[in-house]
């Protein structure tokens, strides 16, 4: 059976470059970078080279990169650190958006329990916020602004540079969860006025379980894992040497190929969007222009997402949905609800996220299978019957 992997926002397949870069550090060069003998120092040198390469891709300084276990850890550390340092100066207010990743939202919920006050900016129906909203929310006691670079579900790219300017002018630290952006669209921490940034290797064809936190020089960064002096005392624990080196190789490759990859992806993505929107009562979620080159997110009225996914899985297509039934909760995606979609529409969403490994044939195949799946799910749906008979009004 044909298999089409179209869930690259969840994770990506490792590239050959990333696998090959990793291999020697699992076998021959296994030394601990903290050891003084040669075998340790070889690993240490490779680690620092990786740090330099990652810094270069972000236009950061090598000393501004800290290795972590991934995007969630980076988000946790950045936010907790900024909150703690703000609180020491009596600043307990944090600004974010209502459609951040849970690594951000759940961290903020915890901080609220210990006295932080959080402003959740409303997201417009196009999946974007404005720098003006941030500006208007900033107060004298604002300790941090944290706004994602690009949304993981609907792929919308936020006006990060403008938000960065606003924060810089106000003297408020600005963190961005750039897990979906790094390696896919140009990210420049200097030009974008970013103070802290989270990234994760497995979103750009690197390995799972490794990421990085960029923290601008001069901004205090607290440690939350105690033990050793690794990462200049900001993160204890023997470094994931092979993973870090593999991450650097993957990012270097992603950045080198970014222009050609995104040109290819935009063509595939737009053909997929146009093809899927020919299905009656369907709607693209999130702005089409300010959108990650590989992201497609569409709602099909009268369908339920998990049923769509199971039908597509039968056809060998890997995708995801914001339906409640794909999680343990009964609530559909907080992102789709933040865009103002009613619950019943949000349940019927399908997210397809492409990578440069996808082909025109993959798109043809998806465009053949999705309409079949939608038809099948609608044929059995009592809700669709109510819409078709006019008992319930169409939203889309």
């Amino acid at each position, binding site marked *: 059976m044909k298999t089409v992997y179209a869930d690259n926002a969840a994770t990506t397949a490792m590239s050959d470059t990333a696998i090959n870069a990793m291999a020697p550090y699992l076998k021959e060069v296994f030394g601990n970078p903290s050891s003084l003998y040669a075998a340790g120092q070889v690993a240490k040198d490779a680690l620092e080279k990786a740090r330099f390469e990652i810094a270069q891709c972000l236009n950061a300084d090598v000393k501004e990169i800290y290795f972590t276990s991934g995007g969630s850890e980076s988000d946790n550390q950045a936010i907790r650190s900024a909150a703690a340092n703000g609180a020491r100066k009596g600043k307990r207010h944090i600004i974010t958006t209502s459609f951040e990743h849970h690594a951000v939202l759940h961290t903020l919920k915890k901080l609220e329990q210990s006295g932080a006050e959080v402003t959740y900016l409303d997201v417009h129906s196009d999946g974007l916020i404005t720098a003006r909203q941030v500006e208007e929310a900033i107060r004298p006691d604002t300790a941090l602004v944290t706004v994602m670079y690009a949304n993981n579900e609907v792929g919308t790219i936020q006006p990060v540079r403008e938000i960065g300017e606003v924060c810089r002018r106000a003297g408020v630290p600005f963190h961005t969860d750039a897990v979906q952006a790094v390696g896919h669209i140009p990210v420049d921490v200097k030009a974008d006025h970013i103070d802290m940034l989270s990234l994760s290797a497995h979103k750009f064809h690197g390995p799972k379980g490794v990421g990085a936190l960029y923290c601008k020089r001069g901004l205090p960064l607290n440690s939350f894992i105690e033990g050793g002096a690794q990462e200049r005392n900001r993160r204890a624990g023997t470094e994931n040497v092979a993973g870090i080196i593999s991450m650097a190789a993957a990012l270097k490759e992603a950045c080198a190929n970014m222009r050609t990859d995104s040109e290819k992806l935009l063509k595939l993505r737009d053909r997929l969007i146009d093809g899927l929107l020919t299905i009656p009562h369907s709607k693209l979620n999130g702005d089409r222009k300010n959108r990650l080159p590989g992201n497609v997110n569409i709602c099909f009225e009268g369908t*339920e997402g998990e049923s769509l996914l*199971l039908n597509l899985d*039968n056809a060998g297509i890997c995708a995801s949905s914001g339906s409640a*039934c794909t999680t343990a909760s009964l609530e559909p995606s907080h992102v789709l609800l933040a865009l103002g979609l009613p*619950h019943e529409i949000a349940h019927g969403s399908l997210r397809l996220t492409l990578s440069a490994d996808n082909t025109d044939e993959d798109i043809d195949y998806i465009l053949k299978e999705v309409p079949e799946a939608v038809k099948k799910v609608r044929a059995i*749906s009592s*809700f669709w019957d109510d819409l078709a008979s006019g008992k319930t009004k169409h939203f889309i």
Partner: protein
Amino acid sequence: MALYSEKVMDHFNNPRNVGVIEDADGVGEVGNAKCGDIMKIYLKIDGDIISDVKFKTFGCGSAIASSSMATELIKGKPLSQALELTNKAVAEALDGLPAHKMHCSVLAEEAIRSAIKDYYDKNGIEYDKTRFPDPHEEEEHHFEDD
């Protein structure tokens, strides 16, 4: 391991008794679009026997499989037996459901009760009202789960 048992996938992929009975003797609808699950069951009653049953479901894989299995379990059976059907029996017949999907089997049980109640109401048949609690009045779904 797959999310669902082979039986669930069989009933999801080839659901039994899908459709609408235009001149149904009893119709039951439970759940709502907001929660992502609506189950609608149509009954044709002959004497005391469920001579035909059809369903339409908006919902996830386990909701569709639960509807399909529940209709199979009551088809051709006397009403008294259909009223004894529990969500647990539906889940067991499907070789189990994941814990967070057990509410789908509850919807199937409730949809059948609701359709039978509709039949009783339409035909002025006396019944023990305590056996038909309004599912909408319950704060949360209660179900047997082991």
